C-alpha cells in the first residue's frame, strides 16, 4: 500500500515537473505587464492583440503550412522508402539503413549547416522551398524508422498470397501491406508533424527572408524580450491540441464500443 502511494507520488512529481513551465506560460498570458518579472493584474489584451498582429498570423501560417506539407510529403516518401528498404537485402540494405540513421544521430546543428551548404551550392533562393526541403529531409528518416518495425512484424506471406491470387503488386500494396502498417504510418506522420512544428535549429539556418516559423520568430524577438502575445498564442495552440486529442480519444472509444456492441 505504501509502495503504491509512493508510486503515485513519484508519477505526480514527474508530471508536475513536465507541466510546471506550461502552466506558468498559460498564467503569464493573462499578465497585464509586458515583462516576465512582475505580475500587474489580469488581462485579456494579449489575446486581442494576437489577432491584430499580422506578423504573428503570418508566422503561424508558415509554421503550419510547412508542418502540414512536409509531414504529408515525408510520410508518403517514408512509407514508400520503408517498403522498398524492407525488400532490400545484404549490403544495400545495411548502407541505406545507416544513411537513413545519419540525420537521426547527427546533432541538429550539423544537419542544419550541411543543408545550408548544399542549398548555397545549388544557388537556391532561401525561403519556403528550402525550408520545406530541409523539413522533409529531417522528417523522412523518422517516418521510415517508425514503419520498418511494423513491416517486420507483418506476415511476409500475406502480400505474396495476394499476388498469387492474381493481385497486381500495386493492388497488394494498397489492400494488404498499407493497411497492415497503418499504425506505423500514422505514428510516423505525427512524429514528422511534431518535429516540424518544434524545429528551430535547422529552420533557422535554411530559411530566407519573409519566411519565419514560430521558433525563429520567438528567437528573433530576443532584442525586446518575449512578447506576451506569444504566450497567448501558445496557450491557444496548446488548448486546441488537447481538445483535439480529447475528441479523437472520445471518438475512438465510441467506435470501440459500437464494435463491441455489434459483437
Amino acid at each position: 500500500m505504501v509502495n503504491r502511494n509512493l508510486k503515485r507520488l513519484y508519477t505526480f512529481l514527474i508530471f508536475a515537473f513536465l507541466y510546471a513551465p506550461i502552466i506558468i506560460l498559460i498564467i503569464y498570458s493573462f499578465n497585464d505587464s509586458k515583462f516576465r518579472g512582475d505580475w500587474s493584474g489580469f488581462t485579456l489584451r494579449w489575446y486581442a492583440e494576437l489577432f491584430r498582429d499580422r506578423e504573428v498570423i503570418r508566422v503561424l501560417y508558415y509554421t503550419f503550412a510547412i508542418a502540414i506539407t512536409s509531414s504529408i510529403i515525408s510520410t508518403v516518401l517514408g512509407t514508400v522508402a520503408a517498403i522498398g528498404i524492407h525488400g532490400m537485402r545484404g549490403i544495400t540494405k545495411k548502407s541505406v539503413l545507416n544513411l537513413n540513421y545519419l540525420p537521426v544521430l547527427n546533432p541538429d546543428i550539423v544537419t542544419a549547416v550541411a543543408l545550408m551548404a548544399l542549398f548555397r551550392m545549388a544557388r537556391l533562393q532561401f525561403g519556403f522551398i528550402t525550408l520545406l526541403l530541409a523539413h522533409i529531409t529531417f522528417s523522412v528518416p523518422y517516418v521510415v524508422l517508425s514503419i520498418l518495425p511494423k513491416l517486420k512484424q507483418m506476415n511476409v506471406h500475406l502480400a505474396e498470397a495476394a499476388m498469387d491470387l492474381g493481385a497486381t503488386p500495386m493492388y497488394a500494396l494498397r489492400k494488404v501491406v498499407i493497411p497492415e502498417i497503418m499504425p506505423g504510418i500514422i505514428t510516423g506522420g505525427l512524429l514528422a508533424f511534431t518535429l516540424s512544428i518544434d524545429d528551430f535549429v535547422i529552420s533557422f539556418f535554411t530559411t530566407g527572408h519573409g519566411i519565419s516559423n514560430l521558433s525563429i520568430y520567438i528567437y528573433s524577438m530576443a532584442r525586446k524580450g518575449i512578447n506576451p502575445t506569444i504566450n497567448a498564442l501558445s496557450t491557444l495552440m496548446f488548448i486546441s491540441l488537447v481538445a483535439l486529442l480529447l475528441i479523437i480519444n472520445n471518438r475512438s472509444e465510441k467506435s470501440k464500443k459500437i464494435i463491441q456492441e455489434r459483437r
Partner: protein
Amino acid sequence: MKLNRIGYPYLIWLGIFILIPLLLVTYFAFTTGDSQNFSTFSFSIENFEKFISPIYLGVLYRSVKLAFISTLICLVLGYPIALIISKEKPKIRNIMVLMLVIPMWMNFLLRTYAWLTLLGKNGILTKVLSFIGLEGVSLLYNDTAVLLGMVYNFLPFMVLPIFSVLTKMDNNLVEAAEDLGANRAEVFWKVIFPLSLPGVITGITMVFIPAVSTFVISGLLGGNKSTLIGNLIEQQFRYTGDWHFGSTMSIILMVFILASMALTSKFDKEKEGGGGGLW
C-alpha cells in the same frame, strides 16, 4: 516480390540531401579561405590544429560531461516512470503516454524560457526553497540550471523507448522467474532490466545527442556564462562567418557521436528494428 525497387528513389534522395551536404561540410572542414568565395579555398588542416588547444578541448570536455550527467539523471528518473506506466491498465497507460508527449507540442524555446520564471531570484521555486530554510540559493544561470533544462527537455525521449520495450515484454518470463523463487530485486535485475536494454540504449542515444550539441539551453538557462560546443559552432556560422572552423567543429562533434554510438550499438542487437523500439 519486386517491391524493393520502389526504395530506389529514396536512395537518390538520401544521396542528395544527406550524403552530399555532409561531404560539403567535410570539404569546408579541410580547407581555409574566404568562406563566401569558393575560388579562394585551399586544402589545410589548420582548423583541426586550432581545435587542439586547451580552450576548445576544454569546451568539448565540458559539453560531454554535462550531457553525460543529464543522460544519467534522465535514466534514473525516467526508468521508474516507464516501469510504472507499463504496468498500468491499457486505458490509463495510453493517457499517461499522451501526457508525456503533449508538452512537446508546445514550442520548446518557450518552455525553456518559462523556466526562467520558475528559477529566477523571485521565482516560485526559489521562494519555496527559502521557505524551507535554503535561503539565497541561486538556481538560475549556472550549470545546475543547464542540467535541469536538458533533463526537462529530453526526459520524454528516455521514457518513451524504455516504456515501449517494457510493454512488449513477455510477462510469462517474469512469472516464470517468480515461480522459480526469484525475489523482486532479482526479477528486476536479472529479467526485466536486461530485456529492456535495447530501449535503454535508444533512450540514452536520444538524450545524449541533443544534450551534447545544444546551444539554446546553455544560452537561456546558463546565462551564457559557460560555452558548450554547440554555442561555439553557432558562433562560427552566425557571428564570425568562418564556415571552415565551424565545419571542423561540426565534423569533430559528428565523428565523436557516431563513434560513441557505434560502441553502444554493440549492445543493441535489434538495430534494424529502428533504434531498439522507440516506436
